[in-house]
């Protein structure tokens, strides 16, 4: 047998970003960290952790900041969720990815990074396997989202400065490839982040692209809501019971 098949099964590890202030959901998030915002009978992060456990993740590190102690009290060592949980507490806000070089053990294998406030039924395990097979430095899960512009939008003549109108579109729909807030990182990606310096994901992507690293998208048709957005949060509360069998069949 080739030597590599004698190594133990590759572990699946995830870093969940749970340190944000949740400004868009104020005033609730002044007393509750965003990942503990309730959906149905449980916090959003409870759903996420159970999903990770079901998809074969054995080690989850929760990066906390705002109201860290509440998150630690809720999830403890993870025994109740069937996964080993530890914490990285940010003493100062480090942005979405600034904490990664300070977390132990991320220099071995590729791992999952995700926001702690996404409600989705994506197959996290398949995403990580696909990333490992592709050789990409970072893989970003992407979902097509549509926005209706609730205005009467005018199209003009091509000529510069023309005041002549060519068309009138009432409430047009525009679509975007939205980042789902779920990523796979190879250890090489972390080398582009300075320890202890604030960095957000969009800047890291730009940095990697400038360094000609391979950044891939993974287009998903899965259910996806970003609980940090008011509209999505309301929709999540409305749809949770109907979606429950797809989100957490075990709980």
């Amino acid at each position: 047998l080739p030597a590599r098949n004698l190594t133990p099964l590759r572990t699946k590890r995830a870093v969940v970003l749970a340190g944000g202030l949740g400004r868009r959901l104020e005033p609730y998030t002044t007393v509750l960290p965003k990942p503990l915002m309730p959906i149905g009978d449980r916090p959003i992060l409870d759903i996420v952790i159970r999903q990770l456990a079901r998809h074969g993740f054995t080690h989850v590190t929760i990066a906390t900041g705002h109201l860290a102690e509440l998150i630690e009290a809720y999830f403890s060592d993870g025994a109740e969720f069937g996964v080993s949980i530890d914490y990285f507490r940010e003493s100062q806000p480090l942005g979405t990815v600034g904490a990664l070089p300070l977390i132990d053990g991320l220099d071995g294998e590729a791992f999952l990074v995700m926001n702690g406030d996404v409600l989705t039924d994506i197959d996290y395990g398949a995403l990580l396997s696909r990333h490992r097979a592709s050789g990409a430095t970072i893989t970003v899960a992407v979902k097509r989202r549509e926005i209706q512009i609730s205005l009467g939008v005018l199209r003009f003549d091509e000529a510069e400065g023309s005041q002549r109108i060519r068309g009138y579109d009432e409430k047009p729909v525009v679509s975007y490839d939205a980042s789902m807030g779920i990523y796979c990182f190879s250890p090489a990606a972390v080398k582009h982040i300075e320890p202890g310096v604030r960095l957000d994901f969009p800047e890291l992507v730009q940095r990697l692209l400038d360094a000609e690293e391979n950044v891939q998208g993974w287009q998903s048709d899965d259910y996806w809501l970003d609980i940090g957005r008011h509209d999505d949060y309301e929709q999540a509360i409305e749809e949770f019971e109907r979606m429950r069998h797809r989100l957490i069949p075990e709980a």
Partner: protein
Amino acid sequence: MSDRVVVLAGGLGSRLLPYRTVVPKPLLPVGNRSVLEVILGQLAAHGFCDVTLAVGGLAGLIRALLGDGTRDGVRLEYVEEYEPHGTAGVLGALDLDEPFLLMNGNVLTTLDYRALWDAHLASSNAMTIATHRREVVADFGVLRLGGDGTDPMVLDYVEKPSRTYDVSMGVYAIQPEVREYVAPGEVLGLPDLVNRLLADGQQVGSFAHDGLWLDMRRREDFELAQLGAGEIEPLLPSAKPEDVERAILSMPPAAANGA
């Protein structure tokens, strides 16, 4: 007869539940006045004293409040739409043979109606649309993807990108011939009428306004207007006493007595 303005005051503000269940949209308040009263005062201040109000459901409330328009410095006529015909459909019911302004009765704006009017008359446009630039932010991290469909490459990533749109303010200067594009009794929206004109080779122009513009049917605009009512109100020209006097003097005696 001065230049005529048709104000659309029908329709229900379903986007503003629960307010609209008791208040017709154009009577929604800004400070201590309704939007419609603000509009009538502005029109009078710009010398537009003949106003036709197209009213739908709850017409009685609007009539009871505005009467013949004397108090706001205009001469009001009413056209009742028993069934909604859309923003352009009402043109089929009007007997107009001069250019006129058509506008929604829900816009709170500092637009110079007279300047729009003059620009329209100086042009060869069949219709001139007042436009405003609005920025719309997509509240997502947005990726630009390249390469093949299954394994696309990420080309860039922009957090909450914004796009600017030129939008119709709901105020139009219109040549009388445009009415020929609307069949009597037809249900037709303004966007469809504009596209019908364009398809027939008619010239449609724009008049850009970069001052205040709020569409009170939109919840966020409505809320903004309430928050800023104190600051907004002084910006809005209203009827001057001499306009009101002139309107009263030019009315038939019975109307001036409020009969």
